[in-house]
């Protein structure tokens, strides 16, 4: 651990400011709280929002898990883990069950979250209304007056063009029957995991300098039409490694002739599941 940095890189005043924003965000589920985003030693888009949140809530006894596209060992996940090992000297884990803080880029782990855990999401575009209304003062009013009907225009366009709701990630949700929220680029497969989750869900957008949150056991409902209800992705086949049909599968091309296999996106779940089915 380098002594020239404060614990977990950020100075205590910045952490205090971010914690206040988190408390406000938890008090108004789904509401985007502006915060004084700090410069982090990595570029925007690599998870600066998530790292600032993690740095503010982490303590010496925490065990941190970081995933990127569901995987524990991709570049982004590994560099963020190294960052916190160097600056906070805390324990790193790949085990979802024993982790106390899980920072993620695209997925919520397949293993169900528990009470006491904190999920930290790295968010690129926090404003779900941006597609409909690019002007920030207007979107603020739309949130304020709960004018969310036009969000369905995006879903309408999907059905008109593709015959079904083709939005597969960042699928808009209503939190606690009030605020419209972008669940960051998680696949819609993970949307039901947000609903009444026992864990604390924190969302941080570094570039846009916004924090929002879903407190434990809060209603999170995906938008849909009466005649086109919200549906989850389905795959024809099971994971080629562990044989699971109960997880989010990535399609991977394995050779030049276009052979494809389906493999679990959550590597930790896949490894455990493979160990269980083939003792």
């Amino acid at each position, binding site marked *: 651990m380098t002594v020239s940095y404060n614990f977990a890189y950020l100075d205590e005043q910045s952490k205090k400011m971010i914690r206040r924003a988190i408390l406000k965000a938890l008090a108004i589920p789904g509401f985007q709280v502006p915060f004084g985003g700090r410069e982090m030693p990595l570029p925007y888009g690599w998870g600066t929002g998530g790292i600032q949140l993690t740095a503010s809530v982490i303590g010496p006894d925490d065990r941190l898990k970081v995933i990127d596209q569901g995987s524990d060992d991709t570049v982004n996940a590994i560099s963020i883990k190294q960052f916190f090992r160097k600056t906070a000297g805390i324990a790193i884990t790949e085990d979802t069950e024993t982790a106390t803080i899980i920072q993620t880029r695209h997925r919520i782990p397949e293993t169900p979250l528990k009470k006491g855990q904190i999920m930290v999401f790295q968010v690129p575009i926090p404003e779900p209304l941006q597609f*409909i209304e690019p002007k920030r003062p207007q979107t603020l*009013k739309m949130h*304020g*007056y709960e*004018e969310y*009907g*036009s969000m*369905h*225009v995006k879903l*309408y*366009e999907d*059905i*008109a*063009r593709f015959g079904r709701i083709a939005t597969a990630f960042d699928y808009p949700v209503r939190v606690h029957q009030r605020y419209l929220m972008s669940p960051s680029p998680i696949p819609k497969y993970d949307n039901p995991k947000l609903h009444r989750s026992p864990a604390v869900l924190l969302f941080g957008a570094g570039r846009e300098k916004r924090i929002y949150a879903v407190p434990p056991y809060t209603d999170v409902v995906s938008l*849909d*039409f*009466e*005649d*086109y209800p919200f549906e989850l992705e389905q795959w024809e086949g099971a994971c080629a490694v562990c044989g699971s049909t109960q997880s989010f599968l990535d399609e991977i091309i394995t050779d030049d002739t276009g052979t494809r296999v389906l493999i679990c996106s959550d590597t930790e779940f896949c490894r455990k599941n493979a160990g269980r089915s083939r003792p």
Partner: protein
Amino acid sequence: MTSAPDLSPPPLLKVAHLCKFFGRHMGCHDISFEVCPGEVIGVVGESGSGKSTLLNCIAGRLRPSNGSVCFKTPDGMEDLCRCDEARMRRIIRTRTGYVTQHAAQGLKMHISAGGNIGEKLMAAGTRHYGKIRDAALMWLDKVEIDPGRIDDLPSTFSGGMQQRLQIAANLVTAPEILLMDEPTSGLDVSVQARLIDVLRKLVFSLNLSMILVTHDLAVARLLCHRLYVMKQGEVVESGLSDQILDDPRKPYTQLLVSSVLKP
């Protein structure tokens, strides 16, 4: 227009002593009128005379400096200038439609024609795709756009079609008053004629009220029951359209009427 509508029912909109100042400059001054169901009112005058300022005050886009703009709502007459913003937005959204001069301002150009028509329905709470789709198809037909183009982007439409699409997108939630800011300028004469034709049909079949801001006196004569002539922010003359256009009394109106080119 030949027959004057029945003016006995209570007015939908009542504008009283409306003023709007931009700093020391006067946008419009002491304007009062009423709009009854089924009535089409024209506001004419040269550019810079305060026509659009007046319309924007009525549409809640500008806050009047003085006076009142009262809409008839189920709860009685409500004054836009005296209710909170949430209430104002609801009144404007449910009671009025607003057709802009440039379709690009009133339509979302990156969303299909059907989506543009459906947006107001969805904003009003419709959550059934089939019903939204049916309404969009019906309205495309009403404004004489081929329903087969429902999934095309408005940017692929001609100027006249865009304007008719804008009218459909505004009328789908059945507002009582349609506010139009120079809907025919920038269109060539035959396209204008078609637009006016569609508008006349809709006004008759839906008993729609309209406030039409225009500098085109021919359009005003064809569509409007009553005319208000504006100059430098004030109404200089008002009355039945034919009366004003055939027998203008004020020098400014005489000048305006005589300045129209006749082929």
